């Protein structure tokens, strides 16, 4: 039995340096979804895997000190509601549901393609927070069932 939960000192040091690079990589995949392969789904699951990395290396208590877990649990349905709100905004501005109403810009720019950039970001956050909720619930159930950490 170890004194403190989690893995060894080497794993903790490497995680402390590299978790920010993983989150940056996930944000890069989400933002360049309309220029290169990837998009909202792939970037979202990369960010969820970064949180899972911290959870496996440091234990659950450290994650509650690092981020506000209740806020992240509530962020997922909020992003679903924002997606629907953008759709209804499309009805009021032009055309029908989920019409492309922002400016399209020039091709191959980062700020082009209208609605697609905004929807990529919202889908990315939604997938990341949903998968993090699933992993968090499985970890809590694992503890309460009687197994040790």
């Amino acid at each position, binding site marked *: 039995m170890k004194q403190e939960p989690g893995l060894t000192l080497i794993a903790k040091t490497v995680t402390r340096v590299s978790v920010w690079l993983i989150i940056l990589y996930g944000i890069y995949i989400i933002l360049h979804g309309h220029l*290169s*392969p990837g998009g909202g*789904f792939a970037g979202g699951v990369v960010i969820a895997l970064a949180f899972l990395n911290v959870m496996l290396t440091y234990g659950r208590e450290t994650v509650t000190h690092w981020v506000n877990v209740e806020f992240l649990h509530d962020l997922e349905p909020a992003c679903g509601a924002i997606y629907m709100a953008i759709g209804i905004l499309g009805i009021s501005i032009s055309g029908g549901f989920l019409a492309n109403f922002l400016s399209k810009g020039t*091709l*191959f720019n980062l700020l082009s393609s209208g609605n697609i950039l905004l929807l990529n970001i919202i889908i990315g956050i939604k*997938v990341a927070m949903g998968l993090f909720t*699933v992993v968090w*619930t*499985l970890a809590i*159930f694992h503890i309460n*069932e009687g197994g040790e950490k």
Partner: protein
Amino acid sequence: MIVYLLCFALLLVGIYGLLVKRDLVRLIIASGITGYATNLMLVLFGYKRGAIYPILEEGKAVGERIMVDPLPQALVLTSIVIELGITAMLVALAIRLFEKNKTFDITKIKRLSG
């Protein structure tokens, strides 16, 4: 055509696992295999020989290279995400059933409520 037949054989292996196996973990594995075979079959229907991925690049003209069919790829993207949701929920069910009955064997799980 051999590629189509091999993919259909993968689907039949998954269905065999769903019908014959008695262990809950094997059922989850078999449902995953069936999902993989279905997604592969959809993408196989859209492949064009000698074509390239459907992403435009900066220096090239629009109609220079012939591209593969992008529509089955868009449908399979949604399907892969939904398969993960199904697997997560089946794992949660299996954990709860093990806690109540102390076994993963489906012929020994008889009570429904409790």
